[in-house]
């Protein structure tokens, strides 16, 4: 019981504390002797030039060599290209180690209602986990490196050295090579085909890893936990830990540019059934082919199936001036600026989640039962940008096939399974577990150093609410009072310098509850006395 209550508090704190992972690239500032604002409006948010820089493989889209103040170190004379294949194809590495560092720290405030959860502490005398009204918190200390190796091969690596002051809590963010414009080898149009391989955030409509917001998008952190409240007849054997914000191991083919026209992505990535990279998936009998010699310590996936992600978007640049419309940045009266544009996109993710149970076969012999449940996430997105105002939003629908365990008689085995549950022998299809939601956000910069933000998040999940009603069933989704969790998040950010930012965010959080009564008519639990635990957070972030 205390564990469950502890989990409420844990997730509450986690939600408050967990900041968006953000990255900017001081390494490029050093190499090109230029300000962060060349590529970022409000770091790490890219402006049009920054998008073009990234599309080109972390270099200037044209005449890169004339901008580099630190020439690259050649790994072979360019003239050696004529000698290939009798020599290694000449490449280069950045002339200085392209490393950037980042740190952020936070101060957070939680409303009075946070104490309502103290009533869940247990019998009189039980000390509830104490949620302070105010709290200082160390965020991320991260290292990142990126650049270009020549031949249009770009690289990126970032890693959180410590999280919340814990040196061991960090992890790899992205680490990949991107082969830009490989379509040229097949005589395809320019930028028609790129290849990225490694560990990376999916090419989401709006990045979570490089968001300017302090708190993450709720829909990106939504995983599908089927309804498993014994008080309800409806049960779902779904425990899919996948979220769209997860990093993925795999390869990604893409084409087009982010600065205008089409952009498409198809990625094949490891199945990720637990929501985290399974670096400890080992076997003493079948060693990993990497043998531990190259960082491989096992198998990162526990299934043969590869998940698939696809996205297509089209950006309409709406500048009246035709010449400006096709330039990387629009020619404003007082200087280059972001285009006026409208982007429409859609995305689709297909995968399978895996659940394994100890059960029996049809003759009663112990057996491991495996449920492979196909799931998909599908949605659309838009972005409208006018000068320094940007409005964007995303909708997502999530759907997981539900395979319910049955016993030898074909009767559904009540969930969750306990030691006294009948042994499952197989699965039957039940009601799929579904959710939907999204967000709409408006960013406006009244001055080049002030970013104002208004965001609305919504996640609609019946299973989450049902699970919450069974207070004994831990739910990570702030004990939702209703099926839809709405959140308004106004914020403002100030660039103290181009590389130092002060951020403020106030979260009108979704309604929660701690009191459950039984409906005398239906006999089902009903939540009453809803409340909100609004929170505020202020952050300082700097990169160098």
């Amino acid at each position, binding site marked *: 019981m205390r564990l469950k209550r502890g989990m409420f508090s844990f997730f509450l704190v986690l939600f408050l504390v967990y900041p968006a992972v953000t990255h900017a690239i001081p390494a490029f500032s050093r190499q*090109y*002797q*230029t*300000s962060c*604002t*060349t590529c970022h409006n409000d770091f790490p948010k890219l402006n049009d*030039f920054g998008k073009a820089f990234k599309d080109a493989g972390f270099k*200037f*889209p*044209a*005449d890169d060599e*004339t*901008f580099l*103040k630190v020439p690259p170190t050649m790994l072979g004379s360019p003239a050696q290209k004529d000698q290939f294949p009798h020599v290694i194809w000449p490449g280069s590495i950045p002339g200085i180690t392209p490393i950037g560092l980042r740190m952020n720290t936070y101060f957070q405030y939680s409303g009075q209602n946070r104490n309502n959860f103290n009533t869940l502490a247990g019998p009189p005398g039980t000390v509830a986990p104490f949620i302070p009204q105010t709290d200082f918190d160390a965020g991320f200390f991260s290292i990142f490196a990126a650049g270009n190796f020549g031949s249009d091969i770009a690289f990126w690596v970032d890693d959180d050295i410590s999280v919340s002051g814990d040196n061991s809590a960090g992890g790899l963010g992205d680490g990949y090579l991107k082969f830009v414009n490989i379509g040229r080898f097949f005589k395809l149009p320019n930028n028609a085909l790129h290849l990225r391989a490694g560990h990376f955030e999916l090419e989401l409509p709006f990045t979570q890893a490089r968001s300017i917001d302090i708190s993450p998008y709720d829909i990106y952190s939504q995983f599908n936990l089927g309804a498993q409240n014994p008080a309800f007849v409806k049960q779902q054997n779904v425990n899919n830990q996948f979220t769209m914000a997860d990093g993925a191991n795999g390869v990604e083919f893409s084409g087009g540019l982010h600065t205008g026209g089409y952009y498409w992505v198809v990625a094949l990535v490891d199945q990720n059934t637990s929501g985290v990279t399974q670096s400890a998936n080992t076997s003493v009998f079948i060693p990993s082919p990497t043998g531990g010699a190259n960082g491989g310590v096992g198998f990162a996936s526990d299934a043969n199936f590869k998940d698939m992600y696809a996205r297509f978007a089209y950006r309409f640049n709406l500048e009246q001036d035709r*010449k400006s419309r096709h*330039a*990387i*940045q629009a*020619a*404003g*009266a*007082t*200087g*280059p*600026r972001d285009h006026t544009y409208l982007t429409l996109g859609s995305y689709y993710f297909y995968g399978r989640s895996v659940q394994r149970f100890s059960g029996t076969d049809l003759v009663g012999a112990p057996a491991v039962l495996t449920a492979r449940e196909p799931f998909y996430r599908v949605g659309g997105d838009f972005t409208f940008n006018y000068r320094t105002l940007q409005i964007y939003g995303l909708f997502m629908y999530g759907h997981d096939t539900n395979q319910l365990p049955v016993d030898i008689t074909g009767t559904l085995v009540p969930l969750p399974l306990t030691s006294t549950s009948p042994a499952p022998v197989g699965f039957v299809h039940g009601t799929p577990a579904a959710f939907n939601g999204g967000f709409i956000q408006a960013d406006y910069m009244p001055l080049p150093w002030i970013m104002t933000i208004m965001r609305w998040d919504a996640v609609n999940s019946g299973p989450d609410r049902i699970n919450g009603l069974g207070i004994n069933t831990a739910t990570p989704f702030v004990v939702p009072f209703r099926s839809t969790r709405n959140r308004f998040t106004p914020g403002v950010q100030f660039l103290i310098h*181009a590389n130092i930012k002060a951020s403020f965010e106030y979260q009108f959080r979704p309604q929660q509850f701690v009191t459950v009564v039984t409906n005398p008519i239906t006999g089902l639990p009903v939540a009453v006395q809803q409340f909100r635990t609004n929170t505020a957070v202020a952050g300082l972030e700097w990169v160098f």
Partner: protein
Amino acid sequence: MKLKSILFVILVVLGSTQLCLAGTLSGKVSSAAGSVVWVEDPSSKVEAPAKPFVIDQKGLLFIPHVIAVPVGSTVDFLNSDSVAHNVYWTKIGDNKSLGHNLGTWPKGEKRSFKFDHPGVVPLLCNVHPEMSAYVVVVPTTLFAITDSSGAYIIQNVPDGAHNVSVWHEGMKQQSKQVTVNGATTADFTLTK
């Protein structure tokens, strides 16, 4: 023939007189390269050269970083970069009403501006905030920019007492009276 001889003699005399009355002002400025030194000579009329001065933008840099031009001169602002640039300044000297924005233009194009007011013009690019340069508009044709050692030399300075001013980026502008008599030396030590 007689008239020609008289004119020749007059020219020789005038030339000799000029040589005697015009000197050379030279010296060193403590802030080394990029200092602008000019002789304020209210008596002479400033005639700006017909050929425009040029400031290029290349590799996210203004080239050169500092130029000095006589008042009334025209400066052509080029863009040799493959990215768009803009050029603006918020003031000329201390006069903020003279601020101006030349707009945005791509590679290969240029914008020109005639500077009719003396003063220091701090050039900026509003999309590349690290870029900066200076046009020092001087009310005279008697000026020079110091070389890498801080040395300068101004030719044809009329003999006599002159107010000589020195400007350098980030330093306090300095003026002092210098009496020029032939080859004259005047050094300056600037402070922040």
